[in-house]
């Protein structure tokens, strides 16, 4: 409790982290109230598909009916960005959640027991880490076929190794701490030592990275969608909405910025979302930095 209050106190102190919190809270509200903010039109079967107002390829500028205008193919931008918040959270939270679990399990095994287990797990992570995340995720989505779920799977496969590594490293550091040895000296079981002593003290850097990475994961997912490897057209996804704008970057000769809304609005949503998590993660890092925490 005390440390939580302390954390909140520290958070409050840092204006940037306040901004981060506000941004993320806003997005949470948007995600929760998406059906109210942007109700799906009647007869619309799947709310996660952006409703279309006709099939014309030419985007329409913001108007009363379409607050942010429409993209090519007449997908409503407002609806897309609002509901896109949900899919952003979905991708970010699921990927990071799964990766954390996998990373914690494998990282603990490797870090705590060491030896051959460690060697094997670390060589496997080496193999995965030999690929930049986006490239590996790209190859995996290609192999699995593009769909929002496969993007999630691909990002999980591509990003668990760095977590396993990070956790392993932190566990290695904590494993030698005196209180861990004290617990061993009391006869505590491996499970108890890992869960009560090692993880609570080594998990924080990972959690910080996780909070920073939620933004990064969403960025990767958006990049995949943008490259045409993500969701099917029309799925509520910011990256894809930007890819819709791709051919409308420059307007007609007299009015080069005619279609500014198609690229700017979804882009700003991504930027703010990622920025929010980064600010928050940064604040967390500052708070959890042992050098800064009080003695």
């Amino acid at each position: 409790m005390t440390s939580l209050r302390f954390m909140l106190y520290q958070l409050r102190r840092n204006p940037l982290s306040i901004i981060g919190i506000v941004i993320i809270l806003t997005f949470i509200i948007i995600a929760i109230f998406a059906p109210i903010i942007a109700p799906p039109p009647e007869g619309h079967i799947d709310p996660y598909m952006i409703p279309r107002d006709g099939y014309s390829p030419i985007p329409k500028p913001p108007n009363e009916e379409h607050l942010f205008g429409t993209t090519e193919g007449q997908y409503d931008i407002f609806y897309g960005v609002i509901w896109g918040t949900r899919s952003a959270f979905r991708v970010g939270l699921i990927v990071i959640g799964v990766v954390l679990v996998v990373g914690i399990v494998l990282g603990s095994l490797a870090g705590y027991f060491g030896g051959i287990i460690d060697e094997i797990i670390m060589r496997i992570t080496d193999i995965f880490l030999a690929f930049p995340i986006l490239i590996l995720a790209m190859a995996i989505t290609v192999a699995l076929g593009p769909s929002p779920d496969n993007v999630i799977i691909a990002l999980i496969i591509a990003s668990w190794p760095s977590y396993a590594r990070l956790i392993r490293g932190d566990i290695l550091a904590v494993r030698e701490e005196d209180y861990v040895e004290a617990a061993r000296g009391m006869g505590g079981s491996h499970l108890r030592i890992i869960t009560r002593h090692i993880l609570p003290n080594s998990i924080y850097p990972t959690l910080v990275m996780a909070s920073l990475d939620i933004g990064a994961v969403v960025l990767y997912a958006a990049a995949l969608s943008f490259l045409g490897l993500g969701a099917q057209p029309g799925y509520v996804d910011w990256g894809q909405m930007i890819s819709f704008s791709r051919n409308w970057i420059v307007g007609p000769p007299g009015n080069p910025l005619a279609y500014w809304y198609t690229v700017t609005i979804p882009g700003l949503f991504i930027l703010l979302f990622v920025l929010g998590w980064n600010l928050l993660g940064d604040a967390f890092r500052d708070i959890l930095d042992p050098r800064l925490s009080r003695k």
Partner: protein
Amino acid sequence: AEGEEVTEEVAEPPIKNPTIFIQATIGDAETMDPAYAYDSASNEQIQTIYDPLIFYDGASTTEFVPILATEWTISEDGKIYRFKIREGVKFHNGNDLTPSDVEYSFERGMVQDYGMGPQWMIFDPLLGIGTSSRTDDGLIPLEDITNAVEVDGQWVQFNLAAPYAPFLQILAGSWGSIVDKEWCIANGDWDGTQASYKALNDPSPGGSPLQSIANGTGPFMLERWDAGVEISLVRNDNYWGELANFERFITKVVDEWTTRKLMLEAGDADWVYVPRAYYGELEDVEGLTVYKDLPQLTADAFFFQFDISPESPFVGSGQLDGNGIPLDFFTDIDVRKGFAYAFDWETFINDALTGEGQQVASPVIEGLSYYNPDQAMYYYDLAKAEEHLRAAWGGEVWEKGFSITIAYNAGNERRKTACEILQAGLFAINPEFKVGIQVQQWPTMLRGMYMQLLPVFIIGWGADYPDPHNFVYPYMHSSGDFSEWQSYSNPEVDALIEQGIAVVDPAERQAIYYQLQELYIEDVPSFIVAQLVGRRYFRDWVQGFIFNSIDPAEIGHVYTLSKEY
């Protein structure tokens, strides 16, 4: 009035790169080998580097002009074609063109017979429908191939297995290009022996010795092929005919539309590939010439699967209980008709195609011979659709509804829209008619069609040569490309198709193809979504564009183009 004229002249910007024709398109050529090439990007390059025996006369798809053949005869029974070869023609490397080069060109093609290449079009007439070099017993005898084409003095003779009406059209394609025998052999290509036949038959991708080199008699010579980036051709200054108007012909691969648009607007490109979605964007741009309403020989259609595989994941429960469909769902013609009436062509053509398309009744689309403009067709009529769907499956369909998933290939927005329109139409008739739409990767989709997993799929066919046979066969014949996947089989149709190719008399053929068009509407094995009509946007300084619907190059033949005001 005088002042106005002056300003107009001033408004004409100077011609950029007057000696070069620059086009920006998407997708690179796959090969420079005429026997292997089966994609329009390659075909386009090949047809400017190599010459065929004959070529279409202007915009016509039935009249020909002599190119490397100065004259030709067709025997009465339609089985022997003879061509007199032009004299004094030189290949780019200086070698002389001889009739044996012509013989070699076709025989070499058949010897190579790349499995996914165009050679079936040569085998079909010369050795009989459905043949290829590979059989279950191994390769067909080399003599069969060498006997099909013979040199007779300055003449070259083709011996057809049966009459084959569109044979001349086939010869006008890039697969009819004439290569230099001597040069080919020097470069490791077929040397006439059995061993080399075996070794070179069905190469892997890129495995042809002529993959990236070229030596033709055409108006341009291959200067540089920066794969994926650009192809640069230079003028053949020893061309046997009139020299081309450009010193260079450059094809740039530019995937990004915005970039292509800017290139065109700035005059850095003389022609760019404009996806139809962006026609509107160029509407008011100055300095461009646009050619509109050009019918394309390509048509997408919705295909019904008559015998869905039990493994299909797209049929819901697999029963007519409102949550799926039975595997033989589409054998009921009322279902098919109901679907056809539920498709809103007007919206599709006006919105998705921005009006650049037209509804056609059958695979015999406009621009092909024997196209029947008066053929009745389906139209958007929910009442009629309801009527048929009420009747289908003894009323059970109407009562319980159904749920299916239809598929289109990733990246094809047009087909996606078509699916959505069909979905909306059916939903409007009865909310229990649930259509899911599934995007699939191209190979996955192909597999789905091949393994009969897809209850309904949307796909299209582009012409190889401008003849109705090239369309009715895949769409309707029981062993046609699409209809075989559909398990669609109508013996009457099969008989008519086989007859249609074998008769020579145009009147007779017309009757047959009119009847096939009628049968297509009656049977609805599939229904055509639209025939596309296209546009071409050139810089206004480009002159001499001739539209021929079968031309693989959207700019037509670069040989006819020039840059001037």
